[in-house]
């Protein structure tokens, strides 16, 4: 692979992720609206929001770290996008792997956490504490799933993972080979995206959207961008692990949209759990499922 | 006649003369004892230099096995040397008051008896010296004339008396069987006449009888009270020196006359129980003297364990432990002279006297066995000796010994940490100058030993060869006396 | 039982000079007391008759009489009966005793009355501003406070006359008293704001 090619990929991959992620944001709101029998926002609403937020005249910052937090949150996702393979573009996916990615995906949230911390708002800190707890909760089944997938396919390399699944057709897809892990993974995905019933950390009414409490203007815009990346990454990662990655962009987009649509649809049907209930729930069912899946995988 | 009898005879004579001398010329009387000790040391030193091989001295010209004999070999010389040296450093009768003559006389008596024990090659002689030793120590123990001292002294007296009876019984049994009391001769006769239950019973009686002074479990219940009740120097003398002489007697009998597995095992088991009981009791002792007393029970237990190991390894370990314990425990008892009260009162004592506290830490470190201090090398020899033996009971003893060391480290350093605690003000006063100097000399010996480990280890190896050489001991009989 | 409550209370208060007891309804008793004997009345009611709950203290400004009327409402959970003890204190200087020692909740009511009427309760724990933290004017519930005048002097009015309002006003509707017809002299009241 030539250097130019690689550079183009490095630019293109985050860009694609951003666009698809915005579409996913729209999908989120559309699904919510449809479920509540509303019309929902227009097609370009996420774009309007982002542009409006970035074009705010006054921007309130609580310090360098507040700004750096947003930079890290967005920047780390930009980096992450180059590490997940998409059809036709592998980027530098071979330099990392599933485990690196699992940990790298904590970096944006932690970067954000720094920014929130400097906002000096206890609502934000409470939100952080809850978000961290949620992370501790859902990462355990998620890492079990990662282990199971890596064991199943005997690799942590995402490119190889895709190659193996595509070589064998649907029968070798993770979801077919090990549906239990796939279900556990979906559960983890729900929590990872921080949607209901796992959105105690934002809790708009009681802690004023938690970590986002002091984020306005381009700070909030950065968070929108970050969220779109997050949706995209989650979808791609799940697709890569269980749905054989993308043969071409068409099937790939269908897969990732379907994957992300499931938790988003589930989200609007539930109220939210309290922190300890969330921990209890996530440490029970997904973990049991994942462990059963592991037994299957190791057999 | 040989100059070697002088260390026994001179103190004995002086002990009887001293009260009279004290009336005439008290300052001369005061220095008489130490001077004699110095003389003894010189005599022993020169004798040691002249006679590298064992020899027998027949007292009054009667040749052994008929006569009364001193058996002089390097081990005996070492112990005699230790007695004189220890007594010199721990001399308890520096006082200015009217107790001085009595104390000095008793100490001289003690020294004479102890030296006699070290040199004696005859069981009857041993018994006599042992009794002499007991009498002297009764006097010394109750010299403080406090209620506690008398009570302790009485307890000591009772146990000691019964011990003497037992020992005498054992001696009687042996004499009944063999018709002789010369140890070397006994050694020759033992395989035929004493290697049966009768002989072994005699050994058990001897062991427990002499074990009273050697702080052998379970006949050591006098130890804590006596050490806590008597003056620190006396306690140091008893713990550091006298107990070792009793050990020597027992071990001599073990090696020369009763070298059986059963006897060794008995010694080992009593030693193990001694270690356990001593260290455990020390762990919750409430004052420093008792703590040291219990600790010395434990240490003596270790020494018994060491000597129960067959072969030279046991002697190496035993001798090393004996020497180490003598130095360290004597030093500690000197420190405990004024610091003997409740342990709580020592909190913050390091600021009263940093030097003494430092000495305490040094002694404690060596007692626990921290390299490169001599205590470590002594314990290492014990550990290697135990494990080389490979026997299950010896391995059990090793485990007990290791566990006891942990307990030892805990209680010694609980005190050390308390001494250095900040913000607390101690009520104790600094030890007297003499005690400090004495302790410092012991500490200096300890530190010097670190640098002289190599020659020391060689010397101990040589001594161990001699000590373990039962045939050599017996052969000395044949060599005739001078 | 309910019919009987008036009687024990009147018997209870028989020793108190000047306290008059009157049944006003099934569950209501009115006591007319004097400022001097009110504490005694309340103490008796609390200690002997089980009126443990002070549900409110009410104040009425009788400007023309130059008096404030204070009404202490006590509730008995046993008798399910409300007793209202009325006293009148002179409007000037408007000082009365606190019953905080007897009923702790009185602290709040007294603070409120102090804020709204300017009555000072001696011995009340805290008579700082309570609800009207921004208020610098006279105690607003006093009858001599001209709220409308104060409003006129303090606030501006939006120029808000939509057509439909004009139509209504032409028909004589709209706001009852137009701002320009307001009565009080605003200057005088603004003097309070120092």
């Amino acid at each position: 692979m030539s250097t130019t090619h690689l550079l183009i990929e490095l630019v293109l991959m985050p860009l694609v992720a951003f666009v698809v992620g915005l579409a996913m944001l729209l999908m989120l709101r559309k699904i919510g609206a449809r479920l509540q029998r509303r019309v929902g926002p227009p097609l370009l609403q996420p774009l309007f929001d982002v542009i409006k937020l970035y074009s705010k005249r006054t921007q309130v910052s609580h310090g360098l770290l507040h700004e750096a937090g947003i930079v890290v949150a967005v920047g780390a996702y930009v980096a992450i996008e180059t590490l997940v393979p998409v059809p036709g573009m592998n980027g530098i996916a071979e330099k990392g792997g599933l485990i690196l990615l699992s940990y790298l995906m904590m970096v944006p949230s932690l970067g954000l956490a720094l920014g929130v911390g400097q906002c000096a708002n206890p609502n934000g800190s409470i939100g952080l504490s809850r978000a961290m707890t949620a992370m501790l909760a859902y990462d355990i089944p998620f890492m079990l799933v990662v282990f199971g997938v890596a064991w199943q396919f005997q690799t942590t390399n995402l490119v190889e993972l895709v190659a193996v699944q595509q070589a064998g057709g649907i029968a070798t897809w993770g979801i077919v080979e090990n549906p239990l892990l796939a279900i556990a993974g979906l559960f983890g995905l729900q929590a990872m995206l921080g949607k209901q019933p796992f959105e105690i950390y934002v809790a708009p009414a009681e802690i004023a959207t938690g970590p986002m409490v002091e984020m306005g203007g381009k700070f909030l815009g950065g968070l929108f961008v970050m969220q779109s990346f997050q949706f995209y990454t989650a979808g791609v990662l799940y697709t890569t692990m269980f749905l054989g990655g993308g043969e071409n962009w068409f099937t790939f987009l269908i897969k990732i949209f379907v994957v992300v649509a499931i938790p988003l649809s589930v989200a609007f049907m539930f109220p939210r759990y309290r922190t300890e209930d969330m921990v209890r729930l996530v440490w029970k069912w997904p973990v049991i499922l994942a462990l059963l899946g592991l037994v299957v995988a190791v057999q | 006649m040989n100059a070697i009898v002088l260390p026994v005879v001179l103190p004995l004579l002086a002990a009887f003369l001293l009260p009279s001398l004290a009336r005439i010329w008290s300052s001369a009387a005061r220095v008489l004892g130490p001077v004699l000790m110095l003389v003894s040391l010189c005599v022993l030193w020169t004798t040691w230099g002249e006679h590298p091989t064992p020899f027998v001295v027949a007292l009054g010209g009667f040749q052994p096995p008929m006569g009364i004999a001193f058996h002089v070999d390097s081990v005996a010389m070492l112990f005699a040397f230790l007695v004189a040296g220890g007594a010199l450093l721990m001399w308890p009768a520096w006082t200015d008051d009217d107790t001085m003559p009595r104390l000095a006389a008793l100490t001289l008596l003690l020294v004479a008896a102890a030296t006699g024990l070290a040199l004696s090659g005859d069981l009857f002689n041993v018994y006599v010296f042992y009794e002499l030793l007991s009498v002297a120590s009764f006097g010394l123990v109750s010299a403080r004339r406090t209620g506690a001292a008398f009570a302790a002294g009485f307890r000591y007296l009772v146990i000691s008396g019964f011990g003497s009876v037992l020992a005498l019984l054992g001696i009687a049994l042996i004499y009944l069987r063999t018709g002789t009391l010369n140890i070397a001769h006994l050694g020759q006769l033992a395989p035929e006449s004493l290697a049966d239950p009768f002989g072994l019973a005699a050994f058990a009686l001897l062991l427990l009888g002499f074990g009273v002074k050697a702080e052998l479990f379970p006949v050591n219940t006098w130890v804590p009270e006596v050490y806590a009740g008597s003056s620190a120097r006396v306690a140091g003398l008893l713990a550091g020196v006298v107990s070792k002489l009793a050990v020597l007697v027992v071990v001599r009998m073990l090696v020369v006359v009763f070298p059986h597995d059963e006897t060794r095992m008995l010694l080992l088991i009593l030693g193990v129980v001694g270690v356990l009981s001593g260290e455990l009791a020390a762990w919750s002792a409430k004052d420093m003297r008792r703590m040291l007393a219990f600790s010395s029970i434990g240490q003596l237990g270790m020494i018994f364990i060491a000597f129960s190991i067959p072969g030279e390894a046991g002697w190496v370990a035993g001798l090393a432990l004996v020497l180490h314990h003598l130095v360290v425990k004597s030093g500690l008892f000197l420190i405990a002279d004024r610091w003997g009260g409740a342990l709580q009162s020592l909190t913050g004592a390091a600021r009263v006297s940093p030097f003494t506290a430092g000495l305490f830490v040094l002694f404690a470190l060596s007692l626990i066995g921290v390299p490169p201090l001599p205590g470590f090398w002594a314990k290492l020899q014990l550990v290697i000796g135990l494990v080389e033996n490979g026997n299950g009971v010896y391995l059990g003893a090793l485990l007990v010994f290791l566990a006891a060391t942990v307990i030892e480290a805990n209680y010694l350093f609980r005190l050390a940490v308390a001494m250095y605690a900040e913000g607390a003000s101690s009520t104790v006063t600094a030890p007297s100058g003499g005690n400090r100097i004495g302790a410092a000399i012991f500490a200096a010996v300890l530190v010097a030993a670190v640098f002289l480990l190599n020659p020391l280890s060689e010397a101990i190896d040589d001594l161990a060869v001699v000590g373990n050489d039962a045939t050599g001991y017996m052969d000395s009989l044949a060599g005739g006396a001078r | 039982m309910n019919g009987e409550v008036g009687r024990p209370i009147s018997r209870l208060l028989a020793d108190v000079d000047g306290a008059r007891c009157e049944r006003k309804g099934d569950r209501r008793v009115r006591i007319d007391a004097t400022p001097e004997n009110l504490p005694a009345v309340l103490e008796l009611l609390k200690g002997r008759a089980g009126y443990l709950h002070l549900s409110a203290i009410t104040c009425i400004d009788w400007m023309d009489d130059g008096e404030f009327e204070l009404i202490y409402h006590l509730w008995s959970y046993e008798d399910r009966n409300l007793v209202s003890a009325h006293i009148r204190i002179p409007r000037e200087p408007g000082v009365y005793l606190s019953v905080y020692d007897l009923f702790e909740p009185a602290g709040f009511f007294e603070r409120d009355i102090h804020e709204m009427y300017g009555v000072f309760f001696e011995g009340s724990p805290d008579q700082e501003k309570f609800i009207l933290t921004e208020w610098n004017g006279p105690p607003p519930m006093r009858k001599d406070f001209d709220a409308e005048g104060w409003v006129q002097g303090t606030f501006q009015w939006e120029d808000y006359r939509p057509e439909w309002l004009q139509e209504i006003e032409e028909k004589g509707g709209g706001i009852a008293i137009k701002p320009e017809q307001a009565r009080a002299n605003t200057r005088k009241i603004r003097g309070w704001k120092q």
Partner: protein
Amino acid sequence: MSVLDQLLVFAFMTGAVASFIGDRRFAGTLLAILYFGQFLLLVKLAPLGYGAQPVVSAWQPALFGEVLVWRMDALGWYFALITVVAGWLVTWYASGEWGQGYRERGGNLGLMHTAVAANVVAMLLLLSSGNLLSLFVGWELVSWAGFLLMVMNGRESGGVSGPAGLRYITYATLGAMALLAALAIAHHASGSFEYIDLIDAVDQMTGPTRVSLVIAFALAFTIKMGLLPFHLWQAPAYAYSPGPGGAFLGAISSRVGLWGLAMVFGSLIGIGRIAGIELIPGWFDLRDVFMWVAALTIVLPTFTALRQNDARLLLAWHGIGQGGYMLLGLAAGDALGTGGGLMHVLNHASYQAPLFLAVFAVMHRTGTSDLNRLGGLVARMPLTFLVMLIGIIGLAGLPPMNGFVSKYLVYISLLRQGEPLLFILAVIGTLGTVLSVFKLLHNTFLGQLRVEHMEVREAPWSMLIPMLLMASVVVVTGTAPGLVLDWVASAQAALGLPVLDHTLGGAAGLDMLWVSGVLVYGFAVGTLLFLSGNKSRRVHQFDNYAGGHFLTAENQYQYSDQFYAGLMHHIGGWYRASFTWAESVVIASVDAMSAAANGFFRRTQAVFLLLLATLGSVAWLLWGVGS
């Protein structure tokens, strides 16, 4: 005189200098220079890190027929390097204002310098030990030097350092005695204290002997490492040491346990032989015991750390937890696992020390390390914050810092060996660490600055430069882990373990150069995106959303106490303090036995006992001989 001798002599000299002039004003600087000299000597030994033959000391004293040998190999050099650099930087840290402050607070600075120097000497002696005897000597020296450092902080620590140190020395003596037992067994088996003889003898050993040898060694080394269930001593002992001392101890001192285990697993006995000792045949062997102990050591202390409200204790507890990763990797036994475990030693030292130092810098300025009494200090101590930030990212094991790389190797090793439960325990440990260190950072540096800390100043450069140097190690070796992996590979070779195949960017499919590069690229994009908005304006911390409430200096608008209340609501009941309870049971039983022994000496009728004992002994002997 070999370079090793020069090094040891130089280290002794440093110690001597420290003890003579340690309390002078210039002493810290001078000592830092001397440590740097030691460092240069170590650099002279650097070929060791790239596969050279071990260096032997010329001085070999013989005592009681045993020889003390000092020989430094790649493993020892690797550890020694960490030791000396840690000693150097913490002394530098203490050389300036911190030392002044310490003295003003009533500390004995000279003694502290001496203690640190003594620790370095003892560590060097231990790490270059050439046979079991010198190992034991070094071992005890390290233990007692550490003890000195732990207990010397009496008044500074509010009097708790003494008990903590006492607890430590009791555990340490237990470990030392276990080592002594191991020595004895080895001597019995091989007839000498030489490593080579032991290695030869291991094959001839009987099963029980080998098991007891492994157990004795393991006991000694795990106690020093603070592995479960012997971990209770470590946190308070390290936390209440004087700052630089605590940093030194936390960074490297307890890792000598790992060094010992590496020798046992590598050359002395061999992980294969340990795995051959099957406890439940086919299911569970001795190696699994080590791995499970390691995994539990990762999890339990980490979650204990999560509950701490004192920054020092929090870090000290994490130090214990991190030891679990090292052992887990080492016990995994393959090239990846051992490589990760060994690399984690340097990584851990590189972030634990600056973290400790940062906490002590905060303490130096504010006088407290209570996490509920701090907050918002990032505006006042930004560089200290930076150090702590880098440190916690490393400690949490997140990319791109070095902590991730070593943990990654361990993860991959577990993955390849198919150990999902151990893997998930390791992950849980990491997650717990993330939570806990974020609390540390947040409660110290983020949130509202307290009124009493408005005037706080940044730590002086004498403290900052050492911290920043260490933090830079975290970043550099995170980006280019190959630098360290070279040394690790040499150490593996020296131990006879499989050697890790690596590049400059990492191993096992990980290339940190790329990852770091792409992160930088991502941050650049993020910055551009951020700057595309209008410029931002900084506001005061009271200009904050509070539901319409007006914030003032009087009310603390900060969330720090019970930071993870929700989580604790769920798992709080799982903290049972079982180990503390077990420890107290042991103490209580010793106490009871002690009371019994005391009672024996106080109450027993002596004469009766004497007769009884005599009869018993006689009977025993008679029957013994008769039968």
